[in-house]
């Protein structure tokens, strides 16, 4: 192993910045997964498929609105909403019948959902790949003193904290957040108090899936939108969630930071084997703290 690049402060800080932008999408996707896992106790394998669906919907919505910047921003809102609506239908008609089953069944059921979503995408959008453009305001990059940062990465860096703050507000300041936090710890108790847990669950599931759709629509303009783009993100999201502590949204933030930064710094240090770094980080964390970094909700 040799250092391919002279490690300078500049290149290091550049890599950190870029890694943080990558963290944003990881955090958005994995926090949704973590929320669903914590409150509903569903290891939602179809989360990745919903992310993919979000990307495809963002593509279609942007196109329908004429491919303008306004269309892109509209798609950032509408595509996740559409995903959330689909997830609501799925939750009400299918998942709500299965809450009492064990995790294994739920895992397999969501795997089935992922399979179905994949083929639905195949039927609706065709088998090939799609590509959408960044709105012109996000094209190009900023450069200052030898560093460069794509404008869109900067945009992502702004969106990440916004989502985190929104989640914090939702969990700590709203009724639904409080109920769901209680439900995550004592499900029976909340039901006994007379709160309709079923609808709280539906709402939380929708929010979780909204985040998956948001992640998908955020990455849609930067990569080609294809079937199977869910296969790697879902594993990464699960790794992040177990690294952070099952069901802990802040754990998801911490996990995605570790994952995103080891990934981007790994590229700088040992580009040929950079993929190994995040995995290694996960294993080290889990060897030291088998139950994740932060307290899990159960």
């Amino acid at each position: 192993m040799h250092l391919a690049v002279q490690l300078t402060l500049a290149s290091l800080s550049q890599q950190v910045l870029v890694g943080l932008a990558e963290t944003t999408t990881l955090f958005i996707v994995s926090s949704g997964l973590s929320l669903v896992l914590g409150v509903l106790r569903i290891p939602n394998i179809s989360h990745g498929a919903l992310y993919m669906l979000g990307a495809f919907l963002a593509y279609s919505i942007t196109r329908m609105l004429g491919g303008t910047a306004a269309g892109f921003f509209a798609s950032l809102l509408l595509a996740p909403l559409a995903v959330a609506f689909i997830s609501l239908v799925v939750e009400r008609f299918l998942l709500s019948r299965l809450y009492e089953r064990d995790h294994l069944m739920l895992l397999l059921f969501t795997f089935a959902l992922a399979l179905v979503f994949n083929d639905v995408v195949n039927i609706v959008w065709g088998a090939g790949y799609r590509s959408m453009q960044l709105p012109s305001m996000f094209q190009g990059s900023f450069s200052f003193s030898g560093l460069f940062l794509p404008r869109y990465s900067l945009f992502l860096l702004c969106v990440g904290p916004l989502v985190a703050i929104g989640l914090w507000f939702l969990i700590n300041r709203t009724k639904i957040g409080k109920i769901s936090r209680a439900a995550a710890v004592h499900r029976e108790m909340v039901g006994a108090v007379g709160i309709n847990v079923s609808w709280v669950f539906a709402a939380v599931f929708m929010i979780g899936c909204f985040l998956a759709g948001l992640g998908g629509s955020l990455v849609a303009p930067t990569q080609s939108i294809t079937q199977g783009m869910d296969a790697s993100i879902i594993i990464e999201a699960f790794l992040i969630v177990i690294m952070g502590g099952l069901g802990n949204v802040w754990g998801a933030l911490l996990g995605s930071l570790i994952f995103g930064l080891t990934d981007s710094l790994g590229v700088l240090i040992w580009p040929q084997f950079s993929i190994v770094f995040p995995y290694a980080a996960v294993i080290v964390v889990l060897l030291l703290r088998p139950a994740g970094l932060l307290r899990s909700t159960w």
Partner: protein
Amino acid sequence: MSEASSSLAYRLRSLRRLETFACLAAVIVLLLLPFVLPDFYVYFAALVLVTGLFATSLNLVLGYGGMYQFHHAVFYGAGAYAFALMLTKAHAPLWLACLCAPLVSAVLGFLIGAICVRLSKLYFGMLQLSLGSLVWAIVYRWYSFTGGDNGINEIPLPNAISSTTGAYYLTAVVVVVCLFLMYRIVNSPFGKIFQAIRDNPQRSEAIGVNIRLHQLKGEVIAAFFAGIAGVLYVVVEGTVVPDMLFWTVSLEVMVMCLLGGWYTFLGPLLGAAVIVGLRTFTGAYTEHWSLILGIILMALILWLPEGVLGLIVKPANSKMELSAETGRK
């Protein structure tokens, strides 16, 4: 009441006798198959047997041990890779490769198991999934050694076992022997205690069982048999690819166990036959295989969580679910 229970015991015993009889018949049918069927179906039968062995080895820990074995394919792939690498890189004699490959799987099972058994249920499964993904990533990346995404082709095998019929007979014999061994294991004290841990880990600890150690042993045994299945896969297909270790394969095999019924011994084999059959033969009619699999799986979970064989064996314990639930409350 005693009448009822003795008739129940009788029924169980007669069921067991029926099973033995059916097994003998099945072995004879298996031996005669290549004389009746065209080549392709012989190959298909071999593939079903290999996948069935793989699924049964998973069921050893999943159905009988109650462990959330989310990434069993790693051991399957490890066996296959160890076998292929020993033949192509080390030019080892065939018998040695056959012997060592499952041991490599077992060692991997020990390593992964030793890390994972400290945790239980979902954590166990998730950690295993991530460790397995790491193994996959290494296999996929390590070009000079594993051949990367192309896998290993042109594995030198004598014609006697690489021809369709030869591979079939080897597979059939090995699978039957392995199934017999696994049946013995399931019904041994080890297997009984394993089932006890599945039903109630807390209780098992309280009767003096070291459940971590027991689960680790189970993991190693299951990995060993998965490794054998991996070797047979190489014999039947003549190739090894990193796809074998991908996480979706593990879930597909889990679906086989679920479909056949994971509280039954032969369920996974039946599930493997149905899934492999559907996958092979629907290809001629439709490209929407994953949609079909998804719908089958949903229907199973909603209406048939005990699996097909589970449904048939059910009369013996139909009341169980109900009172088990009331008992829990």
